[in-house]
């Protein structure tokens, strides 16, 4: 009986807090009574409905998603590859250390402005996402490899286990817990930084451009609507990545 109700209970545990927060949001909107300062859930939903009926919305969503995901994958591949190399060859790790530290601490806005000067605004979110994702995956790969059970590696050495099998049966299972949390963090950071780059860089027909225009025209409802769209895309991408990682 209890087991049968478990999925319902799980859904309720998600739905009830979300509904409570929407209610709090609506109450605050009623108290503030100013759509420019705080658009309520109803205004946001209305703005979202208007938005999804426009062609610009879909072109913006697809352009931004493609760019951010391209940056995410590029940053992930480079991060994992260089993480493996840095683990194998200490001098590569030493060489990359200042660069990775800089990427971690320098504000995204500084990079965006610099990259705008160098490359223009069109693909700025691709580069920014790669730069944000790279250190996360790079450091997780190194940490994961360091945590690999040396006894299993010694066993593999004694049995002359081919490297492809070592990767499949020893390294990948040991790295997966690190990758799961790293990818989850990285995809969220990608959308945050990618959209921020678009807001500053202003490439046309992007979510960042939509957010900027909402600000200019004081359309708070539309601003919230775009924000909800970003959260939704990020959530869907995170779920897809989790599903892919479960295959390993």
């Amino acid at each position: 009986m209890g087991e049968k109700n478990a999925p319902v209970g799980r859904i309720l545990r998600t739905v009830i807090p979300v509904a409570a927060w929407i209610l709090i949001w609506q109450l605050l909107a009623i108290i503030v009574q100013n759509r420019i300062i705080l658009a309520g859930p109803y205004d946001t939903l209305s703005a979202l409905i208007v938005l999804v009926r426009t062609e610009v919305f879909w072109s913006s969503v697809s352009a931004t998603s493609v760019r951010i995901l391209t940056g995410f994958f590029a940053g992930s591949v480079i991060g994992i590859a260089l993480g493996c190399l840095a683990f194998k060859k200490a001098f590569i790790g030493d060489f990359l250390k200042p660069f990775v530290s800089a990427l971690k601490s320098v504000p995204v806005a500084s990079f965006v402005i610099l990259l705008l000067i160098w490359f223009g605004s069109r693909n700025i979110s691709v580069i920014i996402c790669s730069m944000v994702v790279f250190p996360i995956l790079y450091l997780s790969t190194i940490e994961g490899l360091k945590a690999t059970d040396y006894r299993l590696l010694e066993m593999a050495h004694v049995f002359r286990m081919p490297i492809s099998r070592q990767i499949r049966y020893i390294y990948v299972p040991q790295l997966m817990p690190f990758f799961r949390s790293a990818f989850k963090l990285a995809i969220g950071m990608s959308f945050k930084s990618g959209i921020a780059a678009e807001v500053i860089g202003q490439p046309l027909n992007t979510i960042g451009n939509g957010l900027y225009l909402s600000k200019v025209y004081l359309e708070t409802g539309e601003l919230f609507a775009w924000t909800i769209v970003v959260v939704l895309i990020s959530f869907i991408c995170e779920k897809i990545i989790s599903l892919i990682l479960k295959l390993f």
Partner: protein
Amino acid sequence: MTIEIKDVCKSFDGQQVLKGFNLNIESEHSYILTGPSGCGKTTLLRLILGLDKPDSGTVKLLGDYKYPFINSGMVFQEDRLCDNLDAVTNVTMVSKKVFRETVIEELQKLLPKELIFKQVKELSGGEKRRVAIVRACAVPSDILIMDEPFTGLDDSTRKIAIDYIRDKQGSGPLVITTHDTKGLEFGRIVRF
């Protein structure tokens, strides 16, 4: 193939584990290394495998052995199995030359059939030990080296395991470390 161990000394943190140790390990012979814990049995196996280097003395591979390293089947003191994989995969994963059908057949000689497709983490200590024994014997090797392979096995499974190992020994030497030499009288007992 002969492995010549000559005047080998090895110490860890100032404590001498092996002092002037000598032994010739020859093909088709079995060596049962026995002695109290910490007397250097595992250390000697690691030196034979080239996992550690002696402080002094030599471990040499004599004869016309064509490889630069010893091709060995090994049972480690700890099982060193991948816990999330089943017994069959744990054995097949180590070499391309180990075939799934053969491994299933071999595992069934030491384990009940219902256990061989279970994740290794669900097996008992003795069952894991038997998986490690099959893995060591399944890989084509020139020497079988087993560090306390019978830990956790009762008398009857121990006997079955010993018979299995002897059957798989082939023409290479067999080196076993153990505290209990019962049933291992076929080999040359080396006391530490």
